[in-house]
């Protein structure tokens, strides 16, 4: 394992420290925890809280700020945070309007966030939850725990965050978050695995001519292994699955080409070149494109494509100002 770190049991703490020291104008820590909240608490709006394992930077700490999250709760690398930490986060940002938890659909995340919500409700805090499940790699069938939440989560943060900023009610903010969830689909692939620092070795090995299709964001293998193909062919594989899952015909979409952590931007742009062409061909109109690292998996190399189907309401909220370390809309 080769990493620029100090000690495997310090990565999460020092990462949060480094993030806070980089962005004091945006972020501060809830004392005695790793919970990241806005430097200035906003009290007149629904509070948005999200979180998950560390290793997905800039998610989620990087999305705390105007127009997006109020708190982010990072767990250990790839491990859902514990209920007590989430509870501290909820308490720190709760307002009279209530708290919306944006949770990604993993057994651990859902259980830990729900335990925290129960604790907060016992204190009289209004807490609601949405569960993001945009990854079409796995069937949402009876035989799984449903689709995973991946990069599409960033669209939920953005749009629900913009809605919350308007002073909307908890019910309204939750409804718009659910609308985003209903309309966003993603799929990923990787050509190089990553190593959980404390594990010391990669989650899987890949031959020089192999790729994994249908990976998640926790360094796990995908749904199948194949010979490496060209960027265009890879895009076609991912898009086919996404477009088969939701009817995007004649619609406008926001596109996110998300790098897994070690993917050069050059390769993401080459992928986007094909994505744009295919969508044009299918008469799906691209309203806005985001290319970069939004929801990573440590130093994994690969990318995901997310398509969010838009209507006027979603477009308007997507365009609202956002000012966070990891995501800015001017």
């Amino acid at each position: 394992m080769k990493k620029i770190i100090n000690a495997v049991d310090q990565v999460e703490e020092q990462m949060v420290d480094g993030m806070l020291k980089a962005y004091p104008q945006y972020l501060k820590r809830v004392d005695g925890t790793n919970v990241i909240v806005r430097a200035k608490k906003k009290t007149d709006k629904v509070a948005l809280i999200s979180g998950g394992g560390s290793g997905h930077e800039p998610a989620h700490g990087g999305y705390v700020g105007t127009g997006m999250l109020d708190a982010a709760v990072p767990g250990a690398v790839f491990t859902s945070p514990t209920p007590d930490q989430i509870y501290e986060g909820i308490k720190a940002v709760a307002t009279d309007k209530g708290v919306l938890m944006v949770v990604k659909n993993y057994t651990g995340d859902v259980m830990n966030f729900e335990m925290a919500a129960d604790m907060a409700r016992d204190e009289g805090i209004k807490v609601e939850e949405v569960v993001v499940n945009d990854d079409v790699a796995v069937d949402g069938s009876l035989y799984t725990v449903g689709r995973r939440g991946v990069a599409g989560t960033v669209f939920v943060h953005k749009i629900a965050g913009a809605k919350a900023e308007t002073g909307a009610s908890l019910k309204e903010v939750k409804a718009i978050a659910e609308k985003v969830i209903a309309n966003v689909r993603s799929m990923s692939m990787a050509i190089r695995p990553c190593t959980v620092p404390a594990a010391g070795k990669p989650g899987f090995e890949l031959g020089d001519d192999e790729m994994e299709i249908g990976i998640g964001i926790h360094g796990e293998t995908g749904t199948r292994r194949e010979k490496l193909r060209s960027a265009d062919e890879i895009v076609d594989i991912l898009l086919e699955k996404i477009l088969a899952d939701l009817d995007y015909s004649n619609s406008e979409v926001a596109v996110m080409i998300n790098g897994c952590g070690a993917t050069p931007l050059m390769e993401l742009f080459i992928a986007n070149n094909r994505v744009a062409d295919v969508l044009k061909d299918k008469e799906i109109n691209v309203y806005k494109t985001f290319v970069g690292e939004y929801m990573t998996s440590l130093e994994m190399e690969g990318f995901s494509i997310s398509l969010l189907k838009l209507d006027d309401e979603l477009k308007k909220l997507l365009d609202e100002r956002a000012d966070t370390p990891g995501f800015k809309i001017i």
Partner: protein
Amino acid sequence: MADTAKVIKILKCISAKIRENEQFLTDLDAAIGDSDHGINLARGFKKVDEKLPELADKDIGTVLKQTGMALVSTVGGASGPLYGTAFMKAGAAAAGKNEIDIDDFLVLIEEAIGGVKLRGKAERGEKTMLDAMIPAAGAMKEERSKGADVKNILEAGVRAANEGVEFTKTIIATKGRASYLGERSIGHQDPGATSFTILLEAIEEEF
């Protein structure tokens, strides 16, 4: 018969064994999960270790409940709430007790299993820790009904748990992270079933 001191001794043994197996459990999780099960549990039982000294004069219910709470607040992931709930449920069933015998123990195990099922919305056969827990509890109850002694009962439990682990290799996961792999999860043993078996082995050694 086990008093608080013995329960604490058992917990220390569990903790030591889990921590010894940190890399092994993490490697199992790498194959069908996200490479953290051993790391998670090791972190949790380290915390349990730190907490045990201050529990020496508490009743067994409190010891188990505090163990569960320590796990919930340090392990994270899926196994944190699940093992945490298991210990908290067992603690609730042992509330106020300063001694437990093998029959009490079998009740605690049932309670723990109930907690895991409820929290995780899973059943036997989904390639989770339940595939070691449920057969182990069943085998122990059967031995008990045959009038076997503590040692034989626990041995039967460990044997059944191990068989459960072996069984997990043959099935597709339908709960937890491994379920995303579909057919690819076949051939690999479940990390959580394995960690439960290690835990039961520690109980067998020390009870």
